[in-house]
């Protein structure tokens, strides 16, 4: 984002100059934000968790002990739904070693959890990116054009918000066909209204500012004003909301997979791992616990980071 924009850049400069008092490099929004995030313990925890998850996803083939999709049934010492077995901790040597045990198809739960990070992170990020792009476009148009287009678009957003998001997502996935990609789109669609509202209000509050009037006086086109002057200044709240929403999106995808509307998955997905084994809760709770903890940690990481980002980027909270 070139030239951060007068609003965001201007405000965050002050604390760099006044509080530290030493001659600093010219303040930039992102350097200030980074420093501010690192000052918050919870945001740092979130960041560390997230880095660990990303590393786990990227290096999944090195970390996983087994092929996540291979049924080990028939191999020596392998059984369905065995509990965690670690030889170092006294598990009998004739039983195969599995950190988190095996599932109903005698697949290694640990390896499936590790590979599941790939699915959850990409789908969560994808859903939010999709929602931000479409939502911002809708909100920006509504706020910039105003009049009947504004009214129509925002009432449409109200209608989407009038449904419980998970039910609407289930309906969309069923209508579009059961697949993980359609689940991603469904989760994205139900989160569009939030971004549309944020973008619209940001556009409305920026469009009458002097620097926008100046651009208009200089003869810049409407589209140029919208994309080069107004939208960059609406960026902060969208990014904050987006980070917080990745956690929600991960939860949403997991819920859809848990219910079983994502269809057959070729890659391990945490929610569907739980959904497939939920009836075995009383015999083999570890199969549910392991992916459950993985989902919780992922969502927690994004929530902590999102909170930190909000505190860092929202000048009103700099107290």
């Amino acid at each position: 984002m070139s030239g951060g924009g007068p609003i965001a850049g201007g405000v965050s400069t002050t604390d760099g100059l006044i509080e530290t008092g030493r001659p600093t490099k010219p303040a930039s929004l992102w350097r200030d934000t980074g420093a501010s995030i690192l000052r918050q313990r919870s945001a740092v925890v979130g960041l560390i968790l997230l880095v660990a998850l990303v590393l786990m996803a990227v290096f999944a083939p090195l970390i996983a002990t087994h092929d996540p999709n291979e049924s080990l049934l028939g191999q020596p010492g392998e059984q369905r739904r065995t509990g965690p077995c670690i030889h170092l901790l006294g598990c009998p040597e004739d039983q195969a070693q599995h950190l988190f045990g095996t599932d109903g198809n005698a697949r290694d739960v640990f390896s499936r959890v590790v590979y599941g990070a790939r699915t959850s992170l990409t789908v969560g990020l994808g859903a939010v990116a999709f929602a931000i792009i479409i939502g911002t476009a809708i909100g920006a148009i509504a706020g910039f054009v105003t009049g009947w287009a504004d009214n129509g678009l925002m009432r449409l957003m109200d209608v989407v918000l009038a449904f419980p998001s998970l039910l609407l997502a289930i309906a969309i996935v069923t209508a579009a066909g059961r697949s993980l990609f359609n689940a991603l789109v469904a989760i994205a669609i139900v989160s569009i209204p939030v971004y549309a509202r944020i973008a619209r209000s940001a556009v409305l509050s920026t469009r009458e500012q002097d620097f926008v009037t100046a651009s208009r006086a200089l003869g810049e086109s409407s589209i140029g004003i919208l994309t080069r002057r107004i939208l960059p200044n609406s960026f902060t709240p969208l990014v904050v909301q987006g980070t917080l929403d990745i956690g929600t999106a991960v939860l949403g995808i997991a819920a859809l997979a848990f219910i079983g509307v994502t269809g057959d998955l070729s890659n391990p997905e945490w929610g569907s791992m739980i959904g497939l084994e939920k009836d075995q809760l009383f015999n083999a709770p570890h199969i549910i616990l392991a992916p459950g903890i993985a989902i919780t940690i992922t969502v927690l990481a994004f929530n902590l980071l999102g909170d930190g980002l909000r505190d860092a980027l929202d000048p009103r909270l700099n107290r």
Partner: protein
Amino acid sequence: MTRFILRRLALTIPVLFGILFLVFALARVVPGDPCRAVLGERATDAVCDAFAKRNGLDQPIPVQFAIYLGQVASGDLGNSLKLSRPVGQMLIDRLPTTVELTLLAMFFAVIVGIPLGLWSAVRHNSKADVGTMVFANLGVSIPVFVLGLMLAYLFGVVLKDTPFSLPPSGRLSSGVRVESLVQVWHLKGLTGPLKGLLDFLSGIYIPTAIITGQWNAAVDAFRHLLLPALALSTIPMAIIARITRSSLLDVLGRDYVRTARAKGLKERSVVLRHGARNALLPVVTIVGLQLGALLSGAVLTETVFNLAGVGRTLYEAITGRDYVVIQGFTLTIAIIYVIVNLLVDLSYGILDPRVRQQ
């Protein structure tokens, strides 16, 4: 105030119309042939033509929409294609479960969340505050279905045969039943909407059992609902605690709070009468919004705890392409949602005079 209410009511009309349209459209785009979904894959074309004719499916879509609007306006939600039962009757059977579940969950969330948030704000940056916020962060991060399954395992298996064991599924133990209000009050001859209303209320077991003095049934129903409601309550509880905390922190920094302290008021009075009363305004909004969000969570909770509520019925209807049920149930939920939001806006107008004048 009247103008504020009227204006707010007028705003809901286009939304309601949009909901009707979206519900109708969504039910049509669910792929697959409803005839073969209902009558089986081997139904012949002739049978399916008759089926389409009987259910009005041979009409053009706009005509179907007009017929649908007319039916809804007269309170007729149609008959389930699969079960051949009136959708209205199914709602009377299934909606109370979800209503009871969500209300109990919200009750837990409010009575724990608000005090936790206030406490945490008063002890700002203390260990208690940090602990509460860690709990709140975990609460919004753990999926409802995982928490539900874990609670079911803990109280249904690990603590089995101890006084703390709780039933992990269903609404009542076998052999226990809640006599309906119609039965208890000897109103056998009653028909029409009034009977429907009484049946609906009877489906909300705990209050019904308490009112009519069926104590064993009340306790049994409560024990069954405890785990699902707890699982469902964590997210709103955590959100309410966070909002209450940040809102009170904000208010406690205001000038009028300083004035109250300067007057020599007791800290307790400053926090509760001057602080909390103003701080709880945003909490009202959140409670309303979360009440709607709980309906999403209810789908999952009902699946985990085997409760025949609205969420599960709707899920089964969507997967079974029973579009009459889909329409009726989504419409009902969306309308409840809109009404809750309306009530939140109105209560906000009552609590905060500034809102009315905007």
